[in-house]
């Protein structure tokens, strides 16, 4: 039965995430935006609390680690009835925490995007071995961003170890995480099929921190650049199959994104809602009334602008919930995950920038958080696949085009 309301059973979870956002994220937002690269200690305690909540099952993952493979979620929906599971819980709680602060969410110990990669492709032994550890994700290189099949980092098998060589940039939480999931090629002549992901311990001597980036936004989150110089990892740290399966291996690595894109979409939703709520308050102070019955064009320009933003927020939000719902119900959701990410990513940035304008100097000044949110929001339309990559994924699926036909 068609129902697009958030299920009541997630009320407690959302309430907890909200508390985290209000009590921990918001009060520290500006502080760590200014003090880029300083470690937000407040989050350690929070992580402990959240782990406790995870174990009690109450907070089914405020971060990325709870995302699971859609296909692993059980019976066909026809037989089992509809399911609202961890994917939906995750996007809801992430949006809530990001209403507080998206940079701080990205710095939450144990909640890295690398954890999603592990959850998506690791075998049972690996899942157990890496459980509870904070994992970052290292894909991008100086010469390969969106074109992740073009990465140059190599992995060579020597005895029981893989030897990794190359350079990785833009690793979110790369300095603070305990594990780095590194994408590398087993054989550069065999193209994308030879690309595998490897778990590298952060303290591996072959993994050298080159520098931390100074960024436009999400400054509470460290963004690390690494050099891998004869970095040796046990062969058991290769995630998934070590075989070079033409036409299959890379697809499996890319599956990670089906899980993480709705999460990034959820981050954009959190930021967007923060902007909308703050702006609505400011508009109300300014005497602007927003009415859902009166046609927007018969209201003030500010009210019409607000309604327009709210409508696109609604579309982005529902697309995100749909992608997560599909994963929960074992439906393949590559298309919907990219649609959600594309819509939420661009809408988040758009809303944040427009809200700055609506609030004038209050929006633009550092006295409030709107200008920060507008800076933070932009990354959400870039990482885990830029806007353009999402449109490409969607188009290829809709048009039945390969990556060589539709470049």
């Amino acid at each position: 039965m068609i129902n697009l309301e958030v299920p009541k059973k997630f009320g407690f979870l959302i309430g907890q995430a909200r508390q985290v956002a209000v009590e921990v994220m918001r009060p520290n937002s500006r502080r760590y935006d200014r003090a880029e690269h300083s470690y937000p200690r407040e989050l350690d305690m929070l992580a402990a609390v959240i782990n406790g909540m995870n174990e009690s099952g109450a907070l089914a993952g405020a971060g990325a680690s709870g995302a699971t493979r859609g296909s692993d979620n059980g019976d066909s929906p026809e037989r089992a009835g509809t399911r609202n599971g961890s994917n939906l819980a995750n996007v809801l709680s992430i949006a809530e925490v990001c209403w507080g602060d998206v940079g701080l969410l990205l710095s939450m110990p144990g909640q890295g995007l690398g954890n999603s990669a592990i959850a998506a492709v690791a075998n049972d032994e690996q899942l157990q071995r890496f459980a509870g550890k904070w994992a970052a994700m290292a894909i991008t290189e100086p010469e390969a961003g969106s074109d992740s099949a073009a990465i140059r980092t190599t992995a060579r098998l020597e005895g029981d170890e893989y030897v990794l060589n190359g350079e990785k940039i833009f690793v979110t939480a790369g300095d603070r995480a305990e594990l780095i999931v590194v994408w590398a090629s087993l054989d550069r002549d065999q193209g994308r099929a030879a690309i595998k992901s490897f778990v590298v311990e952060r303290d591996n001597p072959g993994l050298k921190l080159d520098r931390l980036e100074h960024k436009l936004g999400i400054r509470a989150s460290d963004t690390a650049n690494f050099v891998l110089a004869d970095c040796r990892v046990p062969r058991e740290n290769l995630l998934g199959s070590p075989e070079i399966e033409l036409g299959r291996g890379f697809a499996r690595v890319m599956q990670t994104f089906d899980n993480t894109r709705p999460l990034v979409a959820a981050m954009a939703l959190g930021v967007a809602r923060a902007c909308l709520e703050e702006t609505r308050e400011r508009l109300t102070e300014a005497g602007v009334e927003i009415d859902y019955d009166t046609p927007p064009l018969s209201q003030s320009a500010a009210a019409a602008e607000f309604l327009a933003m709210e409508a696109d927020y609604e579309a982005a939000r529902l697309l995100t919930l749909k992608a997560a719902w599909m994963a929960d119900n074992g439906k393949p959701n590559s298309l919907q995950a990219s649609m959600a990410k594309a819509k939420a990513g661009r809408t988040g940035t758009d809303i944040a920038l427009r809200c700055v304008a609506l609030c004038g100097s209050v929006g633009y000044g550092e006295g409030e958080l709107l200008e920060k949110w507008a800076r933070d929001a932009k990354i959400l339309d870039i990482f885990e696949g830029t806007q353009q990559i999402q449109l490409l994924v969607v188009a290829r699926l809709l048009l039945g085009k390969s990556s060589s036909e539709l470049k």
Partner: protein
Amino acid sequence: MSRPPQNLTERSMAIGLRALNRFAGSAVVDRFGLRDPAERFLFSASKTTVRTAVSAGRTFAAAQKLARPARQPTTPPSGLFDLTPTDEQRMLSESVRDFALEQLRPAALDADAACMTPPELLTQSDDLGLTMVGVPEELGGAVSERSAVTASLMSEALAQGDMGLAVACLAPAAVSTALGLWGDEEQQATYLPEFVGEHIPAAALAVLEPRALFDPFKLETRARRANGGYVLSGVKSLVPRAADGELFIVAAALEGSGPALFIVESSAGGISVEPEPAMGLRAAATGRLAFEEVELPAGALIAGARPEVYAECIALGRIAWSALAVGTGQAVLDYVIPYVKERTAFGEPIANRQAIAFAVSNIAIELDGLRLATYRAASRADQGKSFSREAALARRLASVHGMAIGSDGVQLLGGHGYVKEHPVERWYRDLRAAGVMEGVLLV
């Protein structure tokens, strides 16, 4: 979605017969004395030919009435986020979609040019039982439960065939739905039997007025109390099948109260109509209705002019228009995908170019966002939750993205999109309506 192995005719027959069967087997037929040949004649009251005024229409007479108005029950929600339609919804929307694609689509070009819907198509659509969906079962309705979601799915499916024809087919259903939702026992007894019968009256819900920045909550059509009834004056714009209309529900500002809905039979004196063809929706034969001191009985006022009923009516109309935009938007997407894959330029299919491919992606993304927002508004209505906000958001999406989808549909075909050889130019015109229209339809 898997489809039962029935062909179109079998399936539309199945649904039509189902509706008919319900009607024939319903106790209400006897209760209202509809089997009486004399009464039956009223069903098929012939339409007048040349109209200087509106169609004289049939006489609506109250048969036996129920002790209190009948209302469709609603299903309590499961509480889970779910995008799965019920079996009934899937069956209804699939049979309607087949009808839309097999019957409406091929007729759309000529109907658009002629500014009218072929009578045989209207008969077929009446046989589908569209007007029975919003009618309570004890009054001969076809669907056991009240569901704005069901009506949205059916509207979407029809508009996938053609929006103008969909509006023509659905216009009477708005009237029966309004009476099902808000009519009192007298109003239901007088009018609803006609909407579950064999010859469904041409009927329309008239809200829109001809002026810039129209606001349905600030009406210039006015009703004042007089002689125990009301006197109605004003002009309504873009009323579907206006010239043939036998029954209207008209929105008017009631003196000393606020905006309200009135039942107006076309036989009431003082109503005139002129054709008002527009950019799109031409198959719906839109017309402008003028009411000059039209005298209405006391029983013409719906729901005692309760403001919440009027607001609900406007919001349900907005959801309906969003649903139509979803259907026609889907038609655009389904049309451009094969086109851009087949059309070659510079030695390869134009679909191989990002500029083209991304436009297709954006159609799909905004269309699905609009669809979900529409479903959410409708499902909130079914759950008895507030939904004017969600309806407003869906309408905004329909207005902006619906329009953009129509425009991109033409753009992707280039010059070929601009000529009538392809339907995208019509969809371009029709999709603009979703942000303009108020009323007319209800889900």
